């Protein structure tokens, strides 16, 4: 017999309790990997979008806690374009709208200039692109079009006005394929923010060296204290919505892991209390205290490993299911990274070990006299 056989069989003594503990851990791990996964994918989606659009710097109004609520004058864009080493400047006004009848509550609306490289970068799968002079016309990302059940020629309502769908596009980014594109001046009119954009994405010609980006950053910052310039990565980490999602995921994970640890602690404490006589017998036949401790910790570890694996599977199923919920399908793409799954497993194991520490210590300290005194 190997020690693991004993561990496995000890857990099998109370199968219902063991499976319930595993289920509790699996739910905790599932919640962690899916929530943290969503937060991470959300952040990665932004990063990928900005990187593939060729952005080195993001220019916004300084001090705006909420990105969507702040704005910057379009004249700033003109000044940035005139700076040396600046290769491309993409301005965009952004907002979020809801299509409540379709259960879509956070749909991104982007206003682009007619000659914006973004408009020419997306693949038009049906209809046409927006062009200068288009009024009350939109392009829909293919995910959004599917969720709304709209096709080219159909109408949607934006800000209380009817808009004709002139094209449906596909994008590498889940943030764009679930979005509405309109022309910039049209969105400025609808949002009552004439001559303003949410921000600029600036691409720098880096042939002059790596510090060219920093040079351009300093030049733009010199425009005035009302201008904030951040490298793309730093900007994404500063987005309030991402911070909120990440904080919510972290807090929920913490709660889940505490509940998981308490669940293991409860199970292992009950198990040790019930098996006092057996544990006392192990001491009486000469098991060293550390071996008793290891036995209890291994039992907990086995519970946690099974719980962690089940939790990862649960998380994968959850996130796939969430990607099919229309309200989230523009924000969740149904993928989980290996690092998230690994983190979830490690957290479960840590919770399990933490939860088992006290009962294992208690079992280790139990005197062999308990074997003679306890009744089987």
């Amino acid at each position, binding site marked *: 017999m190997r020690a693991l056989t004993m561990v496995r069989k000890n857990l099998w003594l109370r199968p219902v309790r063991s499976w319930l503990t595993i289920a509790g851990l699996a739910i905790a791990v599932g919640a962690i990997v899916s929530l943290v996964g969503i937060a991470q994918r959300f952040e990665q989606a932004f990063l990928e979008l900005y990187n593939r659009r060729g952005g080195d710097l993001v220019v916004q109004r300084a001090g705006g806690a909420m990105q969507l609520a702040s704005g910057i004058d379009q004249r700033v864009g003109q000044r940035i374009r005139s700076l040396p080493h600046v290769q491309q400047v993409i301005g965009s006004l952004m907002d979020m709208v809801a299509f409540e009848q379709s259960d879509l509550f956070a749909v991104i609306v982007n206003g682009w200039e007619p000659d914006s490289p973004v408009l020419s970068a997306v693949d038009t799968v049906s209809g046409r692109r927006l062009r200068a002079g288009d009024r009350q016309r939109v392009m829909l990302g293919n995910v959004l079009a599917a969720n709304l059940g709209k096709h080219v020629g159909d109408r949607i309502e934006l800000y209380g006005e009817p808009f004709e769908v002139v094209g449906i596009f596909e994008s590498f980014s889940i943030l764009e394929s679930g979005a509405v594109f309109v022309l910039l001046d049209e969105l400025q009119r609808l949002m009552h923010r004439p001559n303003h954009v949410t921000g600029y994405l600036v691409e720098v010609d880096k042939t002059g060296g790596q510090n060219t980006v920093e040079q351009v950053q300093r030049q733009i910052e010199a425009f005035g204290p009302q201008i904030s310039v951040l490298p793309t990565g730093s900007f994404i980490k500063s987005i309030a919505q991402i911070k909120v999602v990440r904080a919510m995921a972290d807090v929920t994970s913490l709660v889940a892991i505490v509940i998981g640890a308490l669940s293991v602690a409860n199970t292992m404490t009950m198990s040790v209390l019930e098996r006092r006589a057996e544990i006392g017998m192990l001491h009486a036949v*000469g098991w*060293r205290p550390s071996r008793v401790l290891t036995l209890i910790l291994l039992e907990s570890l086995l519970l946690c490993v099974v719980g962690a694996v089940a939790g990862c599977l649960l998380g994968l199923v959850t996130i796939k299911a969430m990607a099919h919920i229309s309200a989230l399908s523009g924000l969740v793409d149904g993928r989980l990274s290996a690092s998230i799954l690994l983190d979830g497993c490690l957290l479960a194991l840590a919770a399990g070990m933490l939860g088992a520490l006290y009962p294992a210590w208690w079992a280790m300290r139990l005197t062999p006299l308990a074997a003679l005194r306890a009744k089987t």
Partner: protein
Amino acid sequence: MNDSSPSIDRPVLLQVEHASRLYPDGNVTALRDVSLTVHTGDYLSIMGPSGSGKSTLLNLMGAIDVPTSGEVYFEGESLAPQRRLHKIRAHKIGFIFQSFHLLPTLTALENVQIPMFEGSLSARQRRARAGELLELVGLAERMHHLPAQLSVGQRQRVAIARSLANDPPLLLADEPTGNLDSRSGGEVLDLFDRLHRQAGRTLVVITHSQEVAERAERIVHVRDGQIVSENGQPCAR
């Protein structure tokens, strides 16, 4: 002080010297200044009414409890509390409990292997040795059965096999037939006889039963925490 031990040429295996055991919780003195010598190859039974202190004495002899005052020596070494008593229990002493204390999820073969984890045998060697011991106690055919699938007599024989796992020089049995019917009890006592006579094991058995006690060469009576007689001869107080 009372030492009932007769003078014997065989080497001393275990010696209890002026041992007292006080339980402060209940303010109970379970043993008072007891001395007892066990020689290698002895078959000793300890008799006494409930609460007389005989189990306390067995616990001290088995290194699972320590005296409040006095000393216990095993093969000349003191079983002081700071010593690593688990090593002595693992390799020098085999315990047989009244209620067997077998692990219910393990087969007979696996239960017998439990003390062997403290030895240096491989998993394969542990299994082979457990098989031999179960054969010795007449349970070769039942080695893959769980305790619940065995009769109480068979369970006690598994426990005896387990006590022999690390080939200890001393076997301590606490009411080994207390939970058995007379036939099963007789089988266990026959096994003890064989272990003593054929294998030269040293046995110390606690019992209420005169019949069980009479199987031993030495019968020590304990009352009120003191040894009052050995083999019918009163001990000096």
